[in-house]
């Protein structure tokens, strides 16, 4: 495979990527989209565990494919000394190292920050984990749902007397990836200024605690514990999710004028003069009753009809769209949410364009996701290995290119 053209804000930047699954992979996904060369180091014989996650097309995991576009894959055995030597050569040229091994594993492998910074003092080394690199929970396993539980993220959502609710996707994973991506670039800024890199430690549970920003303030100021507020806002009413004939709609009447307009549109003029709803404070006190009265009407309306009638009256509203309707919308189409790209083993398929625009330009997708070890030779050559040395590494089963 020829050298891929790299353009973008991270042009020239090299990322040595040991991450698997989702949260860590999300950081290298962002680096790759923005033009960095990402060397994804994959386990000899099997690769990233996400390669085994369904659904599959032609034997390739579509989840893996979606998370790993624009990256390059080198397949190797990290437990061998020769494998470690390859990593040491790669580190000389890398700017960033990303890892989410079980806590401390990378140090035991001889590839920890203390070792790698001797080789390249400018390296920015990012460790991502469920609970962070310290504390009593450090050694325990943590998935997205557990970070959501322990952090208070799930405890912030749902009915006050019902179950705490996590998000419909693995959002603690990707939220953490997004946060750690910021930290990684901060490390690069400092390294560029001073010539010295750093180690960055980010825990998923710590990032997910952001959900509790306001309830922590409440507790500190008043000693009161507030948790979940159901499908309506805590401070403004009506402001929430209401049932429609064919699904759900969001309605936000955050001023007196909008509340009155809402009453008119729904044919409930009597609410305007009802003392129970006379101002926002009253509406908050009688929020459940108000929601009942509104839903008695909205249940007979289509969600799109609710949206259109309320928007026309300057009341913020939206139908709650199932993903497929969002994905196939005219808005998605004209704003280039996706791009058709060639994917080995599958053919031309749609990938998301990165949501960031630089000077209003899309970050170009240079390739689909790599097959296992697809770039092993190219990466080895680029860090200085000769053809004979590469052949020996293959013969010794240190590196491979299984192309799964």
């Amino acid at each position: 495979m020829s050298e891929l053209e790299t353009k973008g804000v991270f042009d020239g930047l090299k990322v040595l990527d040991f991450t698997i699954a989702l949260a860590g992979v999300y950081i290298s996904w962002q680096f790759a989209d923005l033009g960095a060369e990402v060397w994804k180091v994959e386990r000899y014989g099997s690769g990233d565990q996400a390669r085994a996650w369904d659904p599959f097309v032609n034997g390739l995991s579509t989840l893996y494919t979606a998370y790993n576009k624009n990256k390059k894959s080198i397949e190797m055995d990290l437990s061998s000394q020769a494998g470690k030597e390859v990593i040491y050569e790669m580190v000389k040229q890398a700017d960033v190292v990303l890892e989410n091994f079980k806590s401390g594993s990378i140090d035991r492998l001889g590839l920890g920050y203390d070792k790698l910074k001797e080789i390249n003092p400018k390296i920015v080394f990012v460790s991502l984990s469920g609970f962070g690199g310290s504390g009593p929970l450090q050694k325990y396993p943590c998935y997205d749902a557990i970070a959501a539980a322990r952090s208070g993220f799930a405890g912030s959502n749902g009915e006050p007397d019902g179950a705490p609710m996590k998000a419909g996707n693995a959002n603690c994973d990707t939220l953490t990836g997004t946060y750690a991506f910021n930290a990684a670039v901060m490390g690069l800024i400092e390294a560029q200024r001073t010539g010295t890199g750093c180690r960055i430690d980010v825990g998923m549970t710590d990032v997910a605690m952001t959900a509790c920003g306001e309830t922590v303030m409440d507790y500190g100021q008043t000693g009161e514990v507030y948790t979940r507020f159901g499908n309506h806002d805590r401070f403004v009413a009506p402001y929430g999710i209401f049932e429609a004939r064919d699904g759900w709609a969001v309605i936000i009447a955050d001023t007196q004028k909008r509340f009155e307009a809402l009453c008119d549109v729904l044919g409930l003029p009597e609410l305007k003069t009802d003392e129970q709803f006379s101002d926002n404070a009253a509406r908050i006190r009688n929020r459940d009753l108000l929601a009942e009265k509104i839903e008695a009407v909205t249940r007979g309306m289509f969600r799109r009809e609710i949206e259109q009638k309320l928007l026309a009256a300057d009341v913020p509203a939206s139908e709650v769209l199932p993903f497929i309707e969002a994905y196939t919308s005219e808005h998605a189409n004209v704003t280039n949410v996706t791009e058709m790209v060639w994917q080995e083993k599958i053919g031309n398929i749609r990938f998301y364009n990165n949501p960031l625009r630089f000077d209003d330009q899309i970050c170009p997708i240079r390739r689909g996701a790599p097959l296992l070890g697809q770039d092993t030779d190219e990466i080895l050559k680029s860090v200085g290995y000769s053809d004979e040395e590469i052949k020996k590494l293959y013969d010794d089963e240190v590196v491979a290119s299984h192309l799964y």
Partner: protein
Amino acid sequence: MKPLRSLKVLDLTDGNPYIGSMFADYGAEVLKIETPGMGDSIRRRGASRDGEEGIYQAYYHRGKKSMTLNLCDARGQEILKRLLPAYDMLAVNCSEAKMAELGLSYEEVKAVNPKMVYGVLTPFGEEGPWKDLPDYDLLVMARTGLLEKTGMPEKPTKFGFPLGYLYSSWHLTAGMLAAYLKAQKTGVGQKVSTSTWHVMMELDDTFAECLLGMNTLPKRLGNGFPTTNPTDTFKCLDGWFSLSIGSDAQWIAFAKTAGREDWASDPRYAHDPARSMENYFGDLDGQLKEFFAGITIAEADRICREAMVPGGPCNTVRELVTDEQVADRKMLIHVEDRHLGDTLQLGKPAKFSYDDADVNEIASAPSLGENNAQILAELGISEQESEALKTDGVI
């Protein structure tokens, strides 16, 4: 040593503090530009009376500075332009077209300071049929699919915090930091933009199913997760507990430690597909519900730790304030606020190896316009001129 200590940001956002906070928390100098009289709308969130400030802005604006400036007034625009050369970044949460009406389009800003990184966050992007829809986190989320997919099967669940704004703000800040890193080398800044809707779309893994053209898309599964089974949240004797089993081996370890050899040996549950979606609200889920209903959270936690399987209590602030892990990670810190005194706030999730003892010392949120005099003096505007500006409502 804070990694962004050399960065200076002009923060023109309103109602979304997360962009400025990412920079301020890590040492950047962030100057908020606020509307005279009113200030940032987030100042009023949670206020008990009209015209007052709520407590939350002490957290949202910590470590920032504040200057009032009426950008609809030509003199306000002029003062902002005079500020531009001293700053590295400018952030807004409206379209560039709106900024152009104020004479502050990217081209105009770039003409004054070519190194400027110009960050733009919009709800739906700067083009397309939805670009003028109202900007509320909940309204954007309603159009992404995530809101529809979150919650129990009978109805979607609203998030108790603005998850969409968090994601998109942090995407934008990462893009702006990337552009700043480049500008340090090239001397040339860039416009960096994104939208909350586009960010949330990219995150939806339902997309993978769409690649297949599947006709049946994932449904709302409550606290379930399609690829790790069983994953669910159970009511114990004294509260809620989440379990997330990621492999057959974890399942067997859990069952044995829980004293349920019958689960471990039952061939129906031995492999993940049988524990998965079709059975999700079925037989096994029912048995698990019954099991957890008879034990305490502490007991459930002990079983998961002993079996080394992912599990944990559903905490709220009540538990977080005494949690040893939270304490070890310094995720709750004290910030001295000018008006409220000592406040309890969230700590900073990214730990850098060069963090010093003062890493969690964060300055109080500013009063509205607190830094007016200092900034105007730096620009060489006399006290007399300042008074006139004040009288005319420019500051």
